Structures are given as structure tokens and as C-alpha cells.
């Protein structure tokens, strides 16, 4: 079943009179439960694509259908709901609230969904245990290592039990050992039925995915199926 369907998406940025084409007529689709890596050198448009897939931005033209809904036509508030309920973000820079405990960070998206405080805390604690941080739940973000912060971020991405996990260079700021742990966690999430999309420029990370979409100059250069999982 096609969960994500991107057809003829174009994204053009205007800086003064200069027109920059970030994405040039991109079409692809991703099935539910797939693990896809989007790779490419910097400037290839992979971050722009990730923003569109994450409903953080809308395409200049073309359509992005998510679960049968055309995201490119939604209002700001509707986009906020999509980000809250359907997509879990994992950022390169972790983007945790500073000086805030792991539990509160994980519980943050649930506040915006109107889930009660008791339920939020219970769910957040369970998720932190799942990512192996059961003993660090009340540590503030600045008391955690990079790998631990990224695991908190993954727990946060899972808090609304989204269909899709979008990870933008999730291993960019952490050591190789920790990077592998993060990738194993993402793989196990895929086995639980989540669709995983990661953006990376590292081939060693891309191999964890089932399929790799190579971007270059805003266009899809090639798609490769990975045997090794």
C-alpha cells in the first residue's frame, strides 16, 4: 500500500531576483512499513524534500499525498496536526528543550494533542524505557550524551505513535558506536510497523535502509534496493 506518494513536486526559492530550484519535478512513492534512505551531497535538495515530507513546508507545485490526503493543499493548522499525529521528527541537532527533563521533552508533542498530564508522563516513561533510558528519565537534556539525547529525541518522535518517522541526519552529531545503536533502534521500529525515512550523506548509514533514493541537483539520480538489512 502506497503511504506516501510524491508526484511532480517542485520547490523554488526566491532570494530577491534570484530563483533557486531546490527540487525539480520529483516523483516517487513509499510503502507503509518501508525503511527508505534519501541520500545526496549537500545542495542536492534532500533537506528541502525532508521538509516537504514532514509537512514543515509545502511544494511550489506538484502534489504530496500522505495517507490519501493531499498535504500540499492544507492550511497551517492542518499541517500542524499532521506533524503532531502522523510524523515523528528526529533532527541532527536533537532539538530538545534545554534544561528540561527527558520525560518532559518526550511528553511535549502529547501536550499539543491534548492528552492528560498523567497519561503523558506514563507514556513518556514507557518510551524512554523502550529506548534504554529508563535510568535517565529525570536527567535534563544538558546532562545527557549525544547518543542519549538522540534516543530521547526518538522517544519523543514516537510519543504520538506516528505512522512515519522522519530522521534528518540522525547520526550526524554522534559517535559511530552510538550511531549504530540509533540505527538499530530505527530498524526495530520499522519491524513494529513504522515507516522510516532517513536523510543522510553517509553511505554507511544508508545501508541500514531497504531502499536508497539518490538525489542530485534537485532531481532523483537513481533508486537502489539494498539486499543487506
Amino acid at each position, binding site marked *: 500500500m502506497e503511504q506516501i506518494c510524491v508526484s511532480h513536486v517542485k520547490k523554488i526559492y526566491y532570494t530577491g531576483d534570484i530563483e533557486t530550484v531546490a527540487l525539480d519535478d520529483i516523483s516517487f512513492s513509499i510503502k507503509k512499513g518501508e525503511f527508505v534512505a534519501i541520500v545526496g551531497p549537500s545542495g542536492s535538495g534532500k533537506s528541502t524534500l525532508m*521538509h516537504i515530507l*514532514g509537512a*514543515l*513546508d509545502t511544494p511550489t507545485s506538484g502534489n504530496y499525498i500522505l495517507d490519501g490526503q493531499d498535504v500540499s493543499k492544507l492550511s*497551517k*493548522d492542518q499541517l*500542524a*496536526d499532521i*506533524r*503532531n*499525529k502522523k510524523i515523528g*521528527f528526529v*533532527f541532527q541537532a536533537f*532539538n530538545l*528543550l*534545554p*534544561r*528540561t527533563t527527558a520525560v*518532559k521533552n518526550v511528553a*511535549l*508533542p502529547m*501536550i*499539543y*494533542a*491534548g492528552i492528560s*498530564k498523567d497519561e503523558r508522563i506514563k507514556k513518556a516513561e514507557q518510551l524512554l524505557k523502550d529506548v534504554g533510558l529508563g535510568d535517565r528519565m529525570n536527567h535534563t537534556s544538558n546532562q545527557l550524551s549525544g547518543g542519549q539525547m538522540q534516543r530521547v529525541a526518538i522517544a*519523543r518522535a514516537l510519543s*504520538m505513535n506516528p505512522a512515519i518517522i522522519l530522521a534528518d541526519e540522525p547520526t550526524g552529531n554522534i559517535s559511530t558506536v552510538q550511531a549504530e545503536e540509533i540505527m538499530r533502534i530505527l530498524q526495530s521500529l520499522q519491524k513494529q510497523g513504522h515507516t522510516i525515512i532517513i536523510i543522510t550523506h553517509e553511505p554507511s548509514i544508508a545501508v541500514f535502509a531497504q531502499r536508497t533514493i539518490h538525489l542530485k541537483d534537485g532531481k532523483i539520480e537513481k533508486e537502489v534496493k539494498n539486499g543487506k538489512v
Partner: protein
Amino acid sequence: MDFFELLSSAYEALALNKVRTALAGLGIVIGIGAVIALVSLGQATQQSVQNSIQGLGANLLTISPGSQRTGAVEGGFGSSQTLTLDDANAITAANFSSISKVSPEVSRRGQVTAGRNNTNTSIIGATANYPGVHNVTMSSGTFIADQDVAGTRNVAVIGPQVVSDLFGGGDPTGQTIRINKIPFTIIGITVSKGGTGFANQDDIVFIPITTAQKTVFGIDYVNDISLSAASADSITQAENDTGYLLLQRHKINDPAQADFSMFSQSDILSAASSVTGTFTALLAGIAAISLLVGGIGIMNIMLVTVIERTREIGLRKALGAKDRTVVTQFLIESIILTIGGGLTGMVLGILLSYVISVVIGLPFTISIFAIFLAIGVSGGIGILFGWYPAKKAADLSPIEALRYE
């Protein structure tokens, strides 16, 4: 997201950075505190001046010789000699119901001696009505009586300051002082009125007005006639009654050409009020500047706070917060900060006014207007500048906000 959730998010955000919160609050505290303290100080001064003027005498009306126009030449104020003891007697004889007491007075400064001691003091020629008009009371002996005036007697009533200057204390009643080498017998001493007000009312010597005119000063006019109106309501009536009588006596048809002027206590009060009003306005001006500076401080810290948290706003939006949720949270943060700072500033301002009033010896008053003004202005600024940058940050796309450096 319900209101309680927003409130607790706002509280958590404020508690997270205590120094920033304290600094932002401080701007509000100082702005509001300064305004309340300064305006209250101005009001206290005004009240204190009014009190001391009311202490000069009840329902007091003073007639002073005015300058009479002779062609184009106008004599200086108080230099003319147009009022006489006969004018005062005529007012008394007319028996106006609006007037209770008439007190003609002459006054000079002069040298007074007693033995080897001497002092330069105010010498007032007075009648028996003087104490009733000017609120003078006796600590010992008696004041000048009608027969002293009628008999041109050499008797004197002296103030407590003169007692200590000439006799070093004690009760000198019955002893002799010399004014211009003429001996006077002391028949009474007045109660201290204190050194407050425009002149020291304790450094004073009273002698019968007739003695003063004939023996001491060698004049035939009076310096002023003070009247005590029957009641506060009859001051205007007393002014009219005496005014027309004097015009008639002085054979003047046009009141604009009057050779005397009348000054009631309420005139002095309103003149003083306009002076203290200016003073209060000056303080209010200073307060307004502190309010402005405080406001700019609040504005700055609020702007910086929100700009600093642009990435946080981006993150919250990426995680599903709607624009208005973010804006509401920041708005509530500003309101908590402003109310907290405002209440603290109010308490500080009231405490400060109290301390100043105790130290300077002014009556303690609190300007309710200043409280509302200060809280209104800094509150408004705090909320506006908490809301506006938050609104701008929330309007950014989440990506732009997340990338904000």
C-alpha cells in the same frame, strides 16, 4: 490545549530561566515602584503645604495697602500707607455679620534688648483681637488687652524664641525689655507654634498697636488689617462688605482703582497649590521618564527573550503546536511576569513612599492614580512586547524558526 496546560507551560518556561525572568521582572518593578513613590511624594508635599497654610489662622482674610495709581506712576506693593487704624475701627463699627474679628497690625524688624542680651526680631503692633485671628495662644500671662491699646501702654508679649534669646529660658513675665531704648514690661509669653511654615512664628514681640505707631515706629498708618470671617462660607461676603466700606471711606468709585488689596486664606491656598502642583507635575515628569526607561527595559528584555527562543518556537511548531498556541503561551508568560513584577513594584513603591514620608516628616499618602497609571503602562508594554515578537516568531515557518541563529 486548555488554559490550565498553557498556564503550567508558561510557568515552567519562566522557572526554567530564573535570571532572565528576574531581570525582566526587575524592569517592571523599578518602573512601577518609581512612579508610585514619586507621585505619592508630590501629593504628600502638597498636603503638607496646605496643612501649614491652614495653620496660619481660621478663615483668615488680609487687607493690605495697595499701590494707588497717580497718573502713570505706580507705587510698589506694600509701600503705600493707605490703611489706617480708623479704617479698622470703621470695619469693627459696621458690625458685619460676615466678620467675627478685626485685627489691624503694624510690623517692623527691630533690635530688642534685655540687660546685656539683644536680638533682632519681628515687632508686631497688635490689638486684643490678634490671638483670635492668628491662632495665637498664651503659655503664661495675658495678651495685649483693649485698655493697653487705648492707654498706649509700654507692655510686651514675647514669643518663646525671644525668651530663650534674651533670658535663656525661664519665665520672664514682669521683667523689662527695651525696644529702641524704650522700656516695655513683659506681660505674657506665647505658646510655641514651631519653626515650620514661611517664617519662625516664635521669634516675635507683640506690643500695643498704638504704642508701636506713636512711640516706636513713628507712623500713623497700619501695615495690614487681618479679619477673621464668621465662617468659611462667609469669606466672600466679608471680602465684599469690607471692600465696599473701604472704597467708600477712601472715596474711590471704581473698584479697579482700589488703593488696597484683599487676600484670603483660600487665595494663598490656591497660590500655594499651584506651586505645589508644579512641583507634583515635575515629580510626575521624572516618574514618567522612569516609567519610559522601565518600559524600554521591559521591551528590550521581552524582545531578547523571545528572539532567543525562536528555535524553541520552531521546535514546538514542528512537534505540532499551532501558531495561536505558541502565541498564547508567550502572552501568558508576559502576563504572569507583568502581574508579578507589577505587584512587587506596587509594594516597593508604597514602602518607599512610607519611608520617605517618615524620614522627611511628610504626611503619608498613596496616589491611587499613580498605581493604576504605572501598572497600566508597564503592564501594557510588557504584554505588548511579549506578544508582538512571539507573534512574529510564530509567523515564521517552522524551518526558518528552527534554523534561526
